[in-house]
């Protein structure tokens, strides 16, 4: 099937979950080549689940996934990586008993034995994440939380991917580094990388993003220009919680509260 849009990655009506309970229902998302997209939503909304389905870590129950118009719904994760989709999972996952350098080598696994290219990529990444350069021979599991997060991001960038999906990239990073990482991502997006980030720092994410998806109780409830989402009072009220005074008001949204319950529980 020929897809007319410039979409790099597309999810069509995806339903998936764990065991026999769906955690995501009929989620549709389109990510264009280049540019930053953000997926936001409260805890347990199904963000990580939908992302895992996109990269092939969870089987899709229903619906389809396309990469550059090719149906990859049942393709293994490593094949999707070969198509250029890199992934940074949530929660600073590294190979704990391997050194930082080996972690990066593994990141470049699909590149084969091209030592030169790998060395060059590492050099480039070290410029963004200087800490990594200093810790090349430390076991990754002994690094601090934030250091591990940097390594996790750097690892995914090793293949020079066409798209990168980051599940909470800012997690545990110091403010200075959050800035650096976001800056870097925007820069890469400018060079044509498709950046998809799941974030709790929603306003921040929507500020750098061009397009946003808001998830709630396993469904995509809002889609659109990031700027317009940012201005959408409902979205603000629901998730942003920027200003403490607003908290009161949010608590009064009983309807949504109940829905939020169900979303987290899925019982």
């Amino acid at each position: 099937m020929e897809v007319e849009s410039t979409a790099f990655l597309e999810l069509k009506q995806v339903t998936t979950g764990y065991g026999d309970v769906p955690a995501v229902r009929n989620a549709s998302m389109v990510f264009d080549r280049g540019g930053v997209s953000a997926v936001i939503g409260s805890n347990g909304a199904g963000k990580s689940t939908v992302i895992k389905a996109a990269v092939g870590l969870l089987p899709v129950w229903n619906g389809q996934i396309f990469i550059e118009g090719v149906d990859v719904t049942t393709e293994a994760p490593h094949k999707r990586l070969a198509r250029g989709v890199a992934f940074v999972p949530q929660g600073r996952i590294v190979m704990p008993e391997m050194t930082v350098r080996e972690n990066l080598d593994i990141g470049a696994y699909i590149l084969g034995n091209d030592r030169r290219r790998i060395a060059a990529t590492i050099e480039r990444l070290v410029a963004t994440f200087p800490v990594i350069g200093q810790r090349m021979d430390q076991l990754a599991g002994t690094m601090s939380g934030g250091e591990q997060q940097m390594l996790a991001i750097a690892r995914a960038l090793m293949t020079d991917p066409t798209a990168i999906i980051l599940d909470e990239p800012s997690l545990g990073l110091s403010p200075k580094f959050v800035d650096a990482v976001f800056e870097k991502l925007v820069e890469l997006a400018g060079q044509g990388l498709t950046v998809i980030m799941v974030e709790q720092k929603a306003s921040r994410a929507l500020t750098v993003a061009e397009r946003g998806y808001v998830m709630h109780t396993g469904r995509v409830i809002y889609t659109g220009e990031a700027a317009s989402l940012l201005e959408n009072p409902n979205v603000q009220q629901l998730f942003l919680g920027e200003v403490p005074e607003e908290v009161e008001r949010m608590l009064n949204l009983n309807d949504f509260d109940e829905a939020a319950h169900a979303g987290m529980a899925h019982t």
Partner: protein
Amino acid sequence: MPVFELLVSGILLGGVYALIACGLNLIFGVMRVINFAHGDLLAVGALTTVSVVVGYHMPYIVALIVVPILTAALGLAMQLLVIRRIIDGPMVMSLLATFAISMIVVNVSILIWGGGFHGLPDVLSGSLPILGLHIPAAKLLAFLVAMGATAGVWWFLQSTRYGKAIRSVSQAPELAVISGISISQVRNVTFALGSAMAGLAGVLLAPTFASDAQLGTRFGVKAFAVIIVGGMGSYPGAMAAALFMGILEVFAGYLYGQEFGAATLFLVMLIVLVVRPRGLFGVGART
């Protein structure tokens, strides 16, 4: 006390342990599976060697090639049919599974080869006179292969791209997947390789020891002690520990009797466990 003779015997015995420990260590190190059936594959290897050499009158070298392939196939079958389905469960599970497999392998071997003992009287039965000692040829070969195999596996895991992939699967399978590594393939390869090494050990031990379906059981436990002392998953450690334990067993056996000699291995293992649970050469990340 014939120190020199004992030392050489100990080193050669250590080679035997290293040979068995190598495959066991590979499978444990990568898959966190304690393979109870390892010794039984070894026995199958030894018995097949006897069949090839005595039964079919083929040269020993044929067994050296054919048997590891056979046991690799058996190991792969184990992995595909059973291990891969339970590998992500608790460790006792895989232990029970390999125990059940071990029961099956032993008893099927008995059906095939009978319960009696077999030998290879005419293979490598001589000795090489070196420095006034007679070094058993078969044991010497086993020793050299053990050292070569251990070093080879170590180099492979440590320095090659695929070796690193194998290690990464043992540490963070999900991360390995998204780095483009096919975990199932890595696990299949590992299990087949480990099993091939069990077979190789079988071929090399068949000339020195009496082969029957229980041959592996007689060694298996000691090989395990070696791995513990060396640090699970550590190859230089396993090699050093194997030599150390071999020498220790021979000397302790000579000085204080065989029963004490055998017990020493476990005592040393216990001491190491208590003092350095990760083995003399084991390393680890913070938890």
